[in-house]
């Protein structure tokens, strides 16, 4: 599957086309379609980004945005690969490219209600079964009145 | 006094000695460990906390004795007895003074070691009967460890028996009377052969007693509480008390074999035994000094891993003990 146009095949330098202005604070950011994530990560890994620092998701109101934060210790530079997936989507696990994503992926999938494909141990990490995906904006937190009546 | 009354009196005396020993040693352990670790140890109960252990014994007596359901009922009840009785019987042959010993045995040394070798069986049964994975591991470790170290323990004592010519503890103490060239007392610790065998004896004794750095069977940081996990109230009390009385027995044995039993250096045996009660006091003091050193080691050293322990035992201590026996035999025949 050919990674789509916005993916930067030569990410050094070219990976810097951050989208909105606000994003520029992050530095090199590559926006990629969900299917192209593994391709981009593999390309970046050969590029010298040998360590996955972090992986997390954020519920943007209408979809979930996954962010992969990579780092190259040699060049001391960070790079971010972002992708947008619908709610309850099936996300391909990247653990064979970066084994560091094993547990963060489980946590993100569990707390945002996604499904992991190709993960050796896709069980829940932090909450027991039956708990709703907590980090969704739809899942409400106890209101002040409820807290007061505890 | 009919022989049976004599036996009962001796048994009650030994039982009393063992219980008071246990109480005093538990309090002493807490105080010594406390002060070693820059804290106080018990201070509230009684004068400077002296009644603390009495309270503990009362607590253990009144606590509910829970028998877990999945437990192998008979073995679970038998195990504390299997551990407690041998450590009580092991007091029999200890020479507290020239004539004061529960039983004057010609083979006192072998008797004590034979009785002490039943304790690991009790620990193994306790580990197995509690049907808990942790205590099973604890029991297995204890069995492997104590059986492996009984061999060097016995071998390390053979040179003493060869030189002293007798296996009776009273005889060994008597042999250590007098001084060598007026300065060095005849204690075996000052005899080069004795010193070597003391080194092996000390390590093997620490392993027999499950003391740090070899407290593998109830290694609290790995096996929760080892073989004693499922025991509560008085059954736990028995296991706990027998551990301390074993400590006293082996320390007393070390004193008898290497530090001249109830003798005082440079003073003749009759002078010591003429004063009533002095030999017993000297013997107990020396035994407690040995226990204090064990507690000092307990407060400082970390724990050895089980396979390192086995390698130390089979590959280093037993060959060393065998070599020592050989050397002692040759020297004993050639020199003395």
């Amino acid at each position, binding site marked *: 599957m050919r990674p789509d146009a916005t993916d930067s095949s030569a990410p050094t330098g070219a990976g810097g086309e951050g989208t909105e202005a606000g994003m520029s604070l992050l530095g090199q950011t590559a926006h990629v379609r969900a299917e192209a994530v593994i391709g981009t990560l593999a390309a970046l890994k050969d590029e010298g980004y040998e360590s996955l620092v972090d992986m997390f998701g954020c519920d943007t109101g209408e979809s979930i945005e996954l962010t992969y934060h990579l780092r190259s210790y040699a060049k001391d530079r960070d790079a971010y690969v972002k992708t947008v997936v619908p709610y309850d989507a099936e996300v391909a696990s990247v653990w064979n490219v970066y084994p560091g994503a094993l547990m963060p992926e489980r946590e993100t999938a569990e707390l945002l209600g996604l499904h992991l494909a190709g993960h050796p141990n896709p069980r829940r990490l932090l909450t027991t079964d039956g708990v709703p995906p907590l980090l969704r904006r739809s899942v409400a937190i106890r209101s*002040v009145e409820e*807290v*007061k009546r505890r | 006094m009919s022989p049976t009354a004599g036996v009962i009196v001796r048994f009650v005396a030994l039982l009393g000695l063992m219980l008071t020993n246990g109480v005093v040693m538990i309090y002493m352990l807490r105080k010594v460990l*406390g*002060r*070693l*670790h*820059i*804290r*106080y140890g018990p*201070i509230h109960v009684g004068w400077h906390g002296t009644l603390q252990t009495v309270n503990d014994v009362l607590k253990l007596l009144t606590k509910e004795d829970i028998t877990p359901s999945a437990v192998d009922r008979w073995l679970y009840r038998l195990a504390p007895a299997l551990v407690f009785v041998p450590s009580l019987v092991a007091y029999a042959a200890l020479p507290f003074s020239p004539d004061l010993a529960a039983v004057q045995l010609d083979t006192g040394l072998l008797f004590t070691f034979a009785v002490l070798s039943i304790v690991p069986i009790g620990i193994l049964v306790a580990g197995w009967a509690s049907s808990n994975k942790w205590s099973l591991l604890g029991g297995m470790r204890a069995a492997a460890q104590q059986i492996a170290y009984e061999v060097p323990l016995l071998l390390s004592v053979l040179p003493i028996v060869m030189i002293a010519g007798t296996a009776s503890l009273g005889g060994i103490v008597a042999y250590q009377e007098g001084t060598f060239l007026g300065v060095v007392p005849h204690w075996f610790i000052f005899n080069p052969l004795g010193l070597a065998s003391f080194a092996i004896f000390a390590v093997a004794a620490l392993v027999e007693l499950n003391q740090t750095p070899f407290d593998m069977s109830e290694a609290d940081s790995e096996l929760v509480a080892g073989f004693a996990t499922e025991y509560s109230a008085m059954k736990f009390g028995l296991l706990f008390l027998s551990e301390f009385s074993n400590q006293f027995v082996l320390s007393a044995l070390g004193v008898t074999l290497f530090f001249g039993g109830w003798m005082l250096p440079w003073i003749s045996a009759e002078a010591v035994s003429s004063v009533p009660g002095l030999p017993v006091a000297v013997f107990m003091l020396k035994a407690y000094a040995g226990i204090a050193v064990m507690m*000092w*080691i307990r*407060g*400082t*050293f970390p724990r050895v891993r089980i396979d390192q322990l086995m390698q130390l035992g089979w590959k280093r201590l037993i060959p060393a003990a065998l070599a020592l026996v050989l050397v002692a035999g040759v020297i004993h025949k050639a020199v003395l």
Partner: protein
Amino acid sequence: MWGAGLVNGLRITLRNLRRGPIAVKYPYEKLELPERARWAVRPKYFEDGSPKCTACMTCVRTCPDHILSLDVETREDKTKHIDRFGYEIGACMMCGLCVEVCPFDAIRMSHEYELAVTDVSGLDEALLEDVDAASAQRHRAASDGTKDPESDD
């Protein structure tokens, strides 16, 4: 030599033994707290004993755990009467944010750390009960300009 570290370890524990215990026997000896120690929240009063709190609800809004509650009734002449200034000490994490944000310096972080209670209802205290709230002018008069109580919020 193999055993050197072991013997050195014994020497160090003996040296610590000689240094003597450093434990504080708590109920009998107590450590004095540094001046900034933050424990239970306590109200502050003017010299004549009336509370400095003007029931402005700033602290109630600021508290991250919503444990402060203020039942107030405003009379016609704009003066306020505090029925109950509730403070759930059981849930308070003593972060000090309420004291920092209070514009009238009406509450302080005390040094009371012995807060154990025998009954669960003791966990929900009332800082002020059935008392008149101070008015802003009172603060201006009292402080007459030393500290401007009307800082904006």
